[in-house]
């Protein structure tokens, strides 16, 4: 029974990683940049939700919507002021700017919300948990909600990028920005939309993360952000099903490492996975191998 419980905890943690990784992968796949501030957008989303529930007394659903809206706007603003001026700059400059944005968000949160941790109220408090095998195995409502959200988001994004006009425009930009522009696609607007969607997802991830692991601090998003990045690389960065698969696998690896190897080594093992993947299959589990002409 311990094994099953650990497996379920792993899937639950992995689903949160997966949703964060989906945001990473969207932005990387289309804008071709690593948005290291993504983890901190998660934190901002969680704070917005926390404030709406605790200070404004809004319902969880309304708070989540507010949080998604807030993060979407934040994502567009970050893209506009920090990344857009660097559209033709080397990717290293963009990467460093992203790290700068990450620190900016963390420290702004530190000034506004102070560093003492907040206890995040679960958004699914009213839903009961499911008990199996006569109460031996208990699956919390938040676990079920997280897993379902993860599947829904993954399917939604796949549909969006393959079927809708805007989604196709995004894929076109990803393949060749210049050619896309010649075909009449507004590249700037499309990339802004990618950030909007990625940040909206980050808000959902933040709310789910903090509902399952209820402490909220300005640094809350940092570690999950980096682990989700690892998950995105594991699954094949740029690939939507890959991010979901990588996230879930990484969550299971982390929990199993904690349970059967040792809590001290869990993080080391998680990041060792990143190294192994980069050595053996740099394109990730579901990534495409591309040949580049030099």
């Amino acid at each position, binding site marked *: *029974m*311990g094994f099953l*419980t*650990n497996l379920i*905890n792993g899937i639950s*943690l992995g689903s949160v990683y997966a949703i964060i990784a989906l945001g990473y992968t969207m932005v990387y796949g289309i804008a071709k940049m690593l948005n290291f501030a993504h983890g901190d957008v998660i934190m901002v989303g969680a704070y917005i939700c*926390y404030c709406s529930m*605790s200070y404004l007394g809004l319902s969880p659903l309304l708070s989540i919507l507010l949080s998604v809206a807030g993060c979407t706007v934040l994502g567009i603003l970050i893209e506009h002021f920090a990344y857009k001026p660097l559209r033709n700059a080397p990717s290293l400059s963009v990467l460093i700017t992203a790290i700068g944005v990450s620190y900016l968000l963390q420290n702004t949160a530190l000034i506004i919300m*102070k*560093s*003492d*941790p*907040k*206890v*995040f*109220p679960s958004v699914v408090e009213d839903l009961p*948990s499911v*008990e199996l095998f006569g*109460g031996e195995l*208990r699956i*919390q409502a938040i676990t079920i909600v997280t897993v379902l959200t993860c599947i829904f988001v993954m399917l939604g994004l796949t549909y969006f990028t393959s079927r809708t006009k805007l989604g196709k425009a995004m894929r076109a930009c990803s393949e060749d920005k210049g050619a896309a522009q010649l075909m009449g696609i507004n590249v700037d607007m499309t990339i802004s939309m990618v950030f909007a969607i990625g940040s909206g997802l980050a808000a959902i991830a933040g709310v789910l993360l903090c509902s*399952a*692991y*209820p*402490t909220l601090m300005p640094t*809350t998003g940092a*570690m999950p952000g980096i682990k989700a990045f690892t998950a995105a690389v594991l699954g094949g960065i740029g690939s939507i099903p890959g991010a979901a698969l990588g996230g879930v696998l990484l969550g299971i690896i982390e*929990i199993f490492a*904690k*349970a059967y190897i040792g*809590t*001290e080594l*869990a*993080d080391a093992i998680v990041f060792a996975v990143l190294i192994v993947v980069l050595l053996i299959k740099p394109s990730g589990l579901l990534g495409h191998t591309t040949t580049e002409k030099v």
Partner: protein
Amino acid sequence: MDLTRMSRRGFLQLAGTLGVSTLLGGCGSMERRPYTGPTDPQKVNGVFRIGGIAPLTGPAAIYGTANRDGALVAVKEVNDSGRLKLELNFQDDEHDPEKAVNAYNNLKDWGLKALVGTTTTGPCVAVTDETNADGVFQVTPSASSIDVIGGVEGSNEPAKHNVFQICFTDPNQGTASASYIAEQKLADKVAVIYNNADAYSTGIFNNFQAKAEELGLNIVSESTFTDDSANDFTVQLNAAKSEGADLIFLPVYYTPASIILQQADAMGYQPKFFGVDGMDGILSLEGFDKSVAEGVMLLTPFVATAHDERTQRFVQAYKELTGSQELPSQFAADGYDCVMAIVQAIEVSGVTPEMPAPEICERLSETFIQPDFVVKGLTGDARWLETGEVDKSPKGMIIKNGVYEAM
């Protein structure tokens, strides 16, 4: 042009600050300017200047503000009664050793003659090095590591004879917890979850384990976490549950403890929980559902709901001072006892406020270690060993209906 001038001035300031701090921090007592504080009777005017350092903002602010407010209650009581004239100046260290040393330097500019602080162990070790070199008498309300006083077995620091503790040392907390659990027969199978990246947590655990072995207490599961993984305890709780532990010992601070309690509740696991002084503060955590802490036990020397007159008078004064209905924690009582112990020692030794700080320090330290020097404080009748450790007996507390009660 302005810009260059500005930045050059900025650079000089920076260089100046760096230079001064290297001089103070790096060269040790050899090149240190002897510190006396103001010694002109006219200027001193019969007022004892007592400095205070505590984290008033940041992650440990709950402890620090409680220390400060407790000390303020004591100062007001002493000044009102006319026993002595005290002036208290509290500085923020944000639970950061470097900022704590800066705060101490500010207090030297102000002219402190004795120090109350600091609240947490890391900053306190840094400050005690400074006070020891300067010869400033220091009593810490709650920094419980043996490195704070130095010179005892297992400590990494040399003995600092100017430093005394109001709280128990970490080893004593671990030993006392194991004895309490064994004596009261609270559990057959004990699990421990501790932070192995934290000296406080590991120190208590090691001594708990040693004592538990001696008393035949059965530890069935011990699991760890680090500051980076302090948001998910499902694995540790599962391990404890599958081993059938009926008590979990938590030598950790209140933030991880709050998550452990919530996750145990969510998974429907209801063992007894037993904490130490770091657990105190959990009821003041913003947004925390107090019902999951129901029945949590902790060893602590102070209970605000105790019915004796002195506790009640303190609680009343504390509420008036803070203007809130929140009951004072153990840390507030520690702060109060700090000031009261210093005041009692001043009266016994007969030092006067215009004496130089090192002389005051020497005489107060001698007074503290006299066998007949007993401070009847809120946190128990305290005596001090030559090392600076306190000798008093802990009380068990239990959380009932969202407040602490004596067990």
